[in-house]
């Protein structure tokens, strides 16, 4: 086994651990912005995983998937941020905050 395939295995282990750990943060919260931040990190981890898979599978076409996922994750995060701001304003107007 050469150095590259060994490092690919190590990176897969690291990224899987990161995915699990961020998933714990998504589950325990405690507020909605915490979960959004954790989902943003999960998008980064999945981008890294796709890039690693582009190496390990020998098909560099998967890099396009990483670009598209980065775009979608950015739009999703921005949409979540706007939603959180709107919801906070509505709650404050109703007098719940």
């Amino acid at each position, binding site marked *: 086994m050469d150095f590259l395939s060994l490092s690919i295995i190590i990176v897969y282990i690291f990224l899987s651990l990161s995915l699990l750990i961020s998933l714990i943060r998504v589950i325990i919260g405690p*507020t909605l912005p915490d979960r959004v931040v954790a989902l943003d990190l999960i998008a980064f981890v999945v981008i890294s995983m796709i890039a690693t898979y582009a190496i390990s599978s020998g098909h560099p076409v998967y890099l396009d998937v990483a*670009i598209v996922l980065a*775009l979608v994750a950015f739009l999703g995060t921005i949409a979540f941020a706007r939603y959180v701001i709107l919801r906070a304003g509505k709650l404050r107007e109703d007098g719940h905050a």
Partner: protein
Amino acid sequence: MLEIIAGILLITGGFFVLVAAVGILRLPDILMRMHASTKAGTLGAGLILLAVAFLYAEIGIISRALATIAFILMTAPVAAHAIGRAAYHHGITFWKGTIVDDLKDYYEKTRQTRRGSEKVSEED
């Protein structure tokens, strides 16, 4: 030689992504968690994409990987800023050691004037 460089870049990037995940679990406050995930996560993903560029030494792959890195470097701070602002509006509880809150006066002022300009004029 290129394979060794790519392997080192891969392991370093994976390590930084793991550091970001540990930070997002362990740090006490959403703003600190955001700082961990944005900076370390961006560095980790960028290093792994750089490893792809090193390994496939073709012009199409290199430009695609560099474009993804540039896109991540541009969008990650914007997204982090948006979430941080949203979290501040949401009313998060800061870590007990936080001593500086520069936004407090500004947002209190705008919130009052936005809530009802009539109220402000009555008090005047």
